[in-house]
């Protein structure tokens, strides 16, 4: 893993996960099984494969996916917090709660939902933030999990090389034919 250039790809994958999952509207693409998180993991692995001279192992794909997921979770929290404070993110939850309250047959449940909607609608920015932190945390963990899966899928999709080794450290015609032999007649040039 140390010989791989994975940090920049993981950052790009993390940006895809974090920003696209947090921004209302664009995040709707998550309608397909956490699509942005999967895509973030796949992109991170694809970019690493492009930069690597050797085949990427499945475990490395999972690790790169996990790194992208962690970066993505942090970015997601950073981007989502101002959106939560502004009240944009609670709208979708309120819609679902209103739908449930409308169709609930049980009057007691209806009353509870109505109260919950009223409470959620009248929350201050600080209250919204505090009440959303556990949800944000759960969502960040879910994103990490899905980016790991994306990393696994990325290796399956894009790693075509099987057991190929990186090119030799020395060029094939090393040492050059016109180069004088080493003095003393002992030792020799390193062979590739």
């Amino acid at each position, binding site marked *: 893993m140390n010989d791989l250039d994975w940090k920049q790809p993981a950052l790009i994958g993390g940006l895809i996960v974090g920003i696209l*999952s947090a921004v209302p509207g664009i*995040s*709707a693409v*998550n*309608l*397909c*099984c*956490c699509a942005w*998180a999967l895509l973030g993991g796949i992109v991170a692995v694809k970019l690493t494969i492009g930069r690597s001279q050797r085949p990427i*192992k*499945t*475990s490395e*794909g*999972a690790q790169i996916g996990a790194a992208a997921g962690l970066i993505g979770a942090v970015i997601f929290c950073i981007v989502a917090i101002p959106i939560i404070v502004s009240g944009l993110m609670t709208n*979708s*939850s309120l819609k*679902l*709660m209103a*739908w*449930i309250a409308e*169709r*609930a*047959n*049980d009057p*007691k*449940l209806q009353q*509870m*939902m109505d109260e*919950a909607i009223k409470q959620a609608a009248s929350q201050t920015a600080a209250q919204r933030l505090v009440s959303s932190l*556990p*949800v944000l945390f*759960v*969502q960040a963990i*879910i*994103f990490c999990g*899905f980016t790991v*899966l994306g990393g*696994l*899928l990325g*290796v*399956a*999709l*894009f790693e075509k090389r099987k057991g190929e080794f990186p090119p030799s450290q020395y060029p094939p015609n090393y040492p050059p034919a016109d180069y004088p032999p080493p003095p003393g007649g002992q030792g020799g040039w390193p062979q590739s």
Partner: protein
Amino acid sequence: MQIEAHITTAQPHKPVIVYAALLLVSFVWMAAIFAAPVLLADGHVLSAMVIYRGLAGICHQIPDRSFHLHGFPLAVCSRCTGIYVGFVVGLMFYPFVRSLRNQTMPSRNWLIAASLPMLIDFGGGYLGLFENTFISRVATGGLLGLAFSVYILTGMISVVQEWEVIRASRNGRAYLPPGECGKI
């Protein structure tokens, strides 16, 4: 001079543990999805809303596009439900179709082929070419979930085996894959 060989052999039960763990996690995930409407119907509003809001980041949760239980929508839409059910079904049937020790990743063409119906179903509905239905969303999602189960389980078993190799090499031991220990 005595030469001592340190050899680590692959533990044959490791793939079974990975399989069981993934199956357990998948069942818990499915249980959470189905528990949300049940909890809501039983009056446990707070617990139900934690599940609904927790999964809001990965699914649009539009009630009209979701299955209902006890009059309330599941925690994810019909397409996502199809994907997860397909994944669990795929995991359950996996040992009957393929050996758990087989670490060869199937051709990526199968994954692309399995995702095409869902992409067509989603794209056609999004562009207004045709109206997708509950059945089409569940069926195409389920097909992709089935494919995911094969790739993800194979990948996870490979990950555990590769970590075993790395751990063995760090301890200065040779690693023998399953079935090779009898040849020494």
